[in-house]
């Protein structure tokens, strides 16, 4: 499509004459406009599929506070709870609630709200998908600014869940007054922004909460437009219609980061290949060869324009149980030897199917194509089968995945139970490798009360998994964010795009 100078000028003149544009000026930003990559289906952050969708959490955290604040580096900090912990015998928990906080309707936030939110989350009738964690607390009581509860079952990560999925504090009195439907229509929280207007499937318009306990946000008004198409998101920010956007192709990010502000920051999502304990994967030589035959760094450099961090366990450097000494380096010669020991070669390759999504994550299909190419060189012939992410979930829950299956795993609290634990523990419906040796190693760690011992235990499990090649960790993803001049974006390692962390330049 060629445009000459004359046609450009003619169309510009037509634009002025028609006066149709009404587009925001690039210079002054009165109202921050964000082109967001997903829609917001529901305003209840504790029930339904939205509650466990990691991408939506940024929207929820703009309006609601979690029990405990999570900082951009994933570390916890005092939020609505200023203090928390277990009793010495680990049979009760105690929490202290921040004073002077108000809900968006002006009513005071109290310890009753915290106790009610925890009790509601543990009630299976509300449909909280994380109910199995919240139900480990019982007999939750508020007294003054203190909340206490009995430990029904010791869950070492309970306080981490308080800044993870469904860990939000909702207003007891308001919710009981308006009900679930009324809350959907007019949600209130204690968060940095109030909901001013919400058009389902289109946008949400937020007004700064002047009484926010963490300080009033820089931008008084924020409009978050739901622009699910990456090309349209890039066009939004390139045209000046929006000031900030995220999750665009890395090539587009590189093209635009010279003219716009670009931030590309590693987040807590990882790419991995599940190995299933079936067929040829029962042969350790095949698994180990499949691991060392992958040149992760080259794949990241060539396919992801360098945006990614190679990983050798399911822990990223931000996670609590990360151990830099666990390595599975690229070694195609070793792969050839391992396969030869099992009778396989380039001429007589081992064959299996690898499943992958296509377009669900950046260059997912292309990465698997590259991996299959690398495997072919050492004597592995893998057939690629693509599927939708919904099918992956169903197959994984039924333990019917192919011998190898690409997936991405999010773990924004960085605890090993929510990465290695749930991904690799046989009885979990999310695990794919279900061998008894691993179950025996992981089992005792779930209730380990000694934190240092628990973390070391998970490091040992990660080393054992790497040595036996029960899974193929690939990379930690990098999230690209573009913003116009005048807006400084602070990235959050959880991947949540938070307007209240955006400042005027």
């Amino acid at each position, binding site marked *: 499509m060629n445009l000459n100078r004359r046609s450009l000028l003619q169309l*510009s003149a037509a*634009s002025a004459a028609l006066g*149709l544009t009404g587009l925001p000026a690039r210079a002054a930003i009165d109202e921050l406009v964000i082109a967001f990559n997903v829609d917001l289906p*529901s305003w209840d952050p504790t029930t339904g599929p939205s509650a466990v969708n990691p991408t939506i959490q940024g929207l929820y955290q703009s309006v609601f506070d979690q029990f405990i604040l999570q900082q951009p580096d994933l570390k916890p900090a005092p939020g609505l709870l200023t203090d928390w912990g277990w009793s010495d015998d680990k049979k009760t928990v105690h929490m202290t609630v921040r004073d002077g906080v108000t809900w968006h309707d002006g009513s005071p936030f109290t310890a009753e709200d915290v106790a009610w939110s925890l009790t509601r989350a543990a009630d299976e009738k509300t449909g909280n998908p994380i109910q199995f964690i919240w139900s480990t607390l019982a007999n939750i009581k508020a007294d003054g600014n203190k909340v206490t509860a009995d430990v029904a079952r010791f869950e070492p990560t309970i306080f981490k869940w308080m800044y993870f999925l469904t860990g939000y504090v909702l207003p007891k009195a308001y919710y009981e007054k308006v009900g*679930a439907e009324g809350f959907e229509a007019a949600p209130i929280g204690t968060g940095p922004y109030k909901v001013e207007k919400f058009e389902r499937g289109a946008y949400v318009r937020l007004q700064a909460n002047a009484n926010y306990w963490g300080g009033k946000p820089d931008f008084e008004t924020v*409009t978050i437009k739901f*622009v699910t*198409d990456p090309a349209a998101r890039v066009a939004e920010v390139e045209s000046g219609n929006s000031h900030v956007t995220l999750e665009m192709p890395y090539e587009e990010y590189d093209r635009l980061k010279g003219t716009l502000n670009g931030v590309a920051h590693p987040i807590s999502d990882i790419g991995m290949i599940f190995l299933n304990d079936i067929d040829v994967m029962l042969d350790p030589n095949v698994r180990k060869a499949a691991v060392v035959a992958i040149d992760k760094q080259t794949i990241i450099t060539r396919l992801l324009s360098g945006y990614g961090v190679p990983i050798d366990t399911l822990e990223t450097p931000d996670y609590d149980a990360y151990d830099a000494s666990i390595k599975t380096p690229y070694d195609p010669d070793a792969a050839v030897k391992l396969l030869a020991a099992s009778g396989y070669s380039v001429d007589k390759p081992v064959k299996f199917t690898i499943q992958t999504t296509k377009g669900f994550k950046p260059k997912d299909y292309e990465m698997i194509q590259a991996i299959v190419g690398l495997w072919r060189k050492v004597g592995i012939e893998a057939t690629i089968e693509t599927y939708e992410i*919904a099918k992956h979930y169903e197959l994984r829950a039924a333990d019917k995945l192919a011998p190898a299956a690409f997936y991405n795993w999010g773990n924004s609290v960085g605890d090993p139970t929510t990465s290695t634990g749930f991904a690799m523990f046989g009885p*979990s419906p999310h695990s794919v490798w279900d061998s008894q040796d691993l179950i025996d190693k992981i089992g005792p760690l779930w209730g380990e009360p000694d934190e240092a011992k628990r973390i070391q235990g998970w490091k040992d499990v990660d080393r054992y998994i790497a040595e036996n090649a029960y899974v193929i960790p690939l990379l930690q993803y990098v999230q690209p964010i573009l913003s116009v001049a005048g807006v400084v974006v602070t990235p959050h390692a959880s991947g949540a795009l938070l307007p209240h962390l955006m400042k005027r330049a």
Partner: protein
Amino acid sequence: MRLIKAILLRLVTTAVTLFGVALIVFFVIRVVPGNPIAMMLPPGATDADVARLTALYGLDKSIPTQFLIWSTGVLRGDFGVSITNRQPVLALVLDHLPATLELSALALFIAVFLGGTAALIGTRLRGTRVEAAIDVGNGMALSVPDFLWGLVLILLFGVLMPLFQISGRITPSLTLPFSTNFYLVESVVRLRFDLTRDLLSHMIMPAMGLAIPLAAIISQLLKQSLKEVMHLDYVALARTKGYGETHVILREALPNAVLPTLTLVGVQFTFLIGGTVIIERLFSFEGLGNMAIDAVINRDLPLIQGIVILFAVIFTAVNLLVDLCYAAFNPRLRHG
């Protein structure tokens, strides 16, 4: 009397069609891979948690039982509750339908205008370079799918020359006085032309994306029909009476040539509504199509069912309307 009988018969067949669609959709979306409960399972969920959530959404019953419960509800006007949106399906669908209808109607208007004009000009200047240029233009318009036209329009009029808005239906900062979701219609009725202009600024590009291929089809068919009619005796008679070529085309040839195009427009309108699925997604237009994609991605079974049933109702209603219009325009059908 015959017409009324035909309409009644058509209504009965429509009801049977809708039941068939409902039955097929209900069973198919439960058989294809991807179950909504698996989609919302958090890390660490146990089999008991899976069973609890499955029961909570009524998916623990047999498919025929689920169908019976659902169809009984539908007859009472209850299409169930969306799993992801946690809102009644009927309300969600009816909220989003006006946006899609307005977009489709605007696209149809543009397509008829562009296609009709091109056909008339092509016929008037037949045998000249202008006709050849129109044929080439039609070929180009047809060979590029609507979503690609959408991308081209975004690049041209969204980025290079930002004439129009790239996403959404209306500027969020505007205060809306509307009492229905037919924003465009209501803005005109209320004489709020500032809002009309803003709405059009959002709708022009997606509507153009939908309209361009359809305009080419209309242009080709109408031009062909006009060509055939132009050789008939009554047109020759009109010429011998001394009428000018433009008068002959518009007053004599067009009324007879337009009938096949009218049928086509009716049929294409239903396809146009179907085409909004991709275009609405591209332009983040808050219509039914955009919602349909989210519903499929999230395996929101009640919402998928509601949207498909509504699409089926629209398709059959439009077809019925076209048949009635055809009968009204065509004397042979009107008088038997």
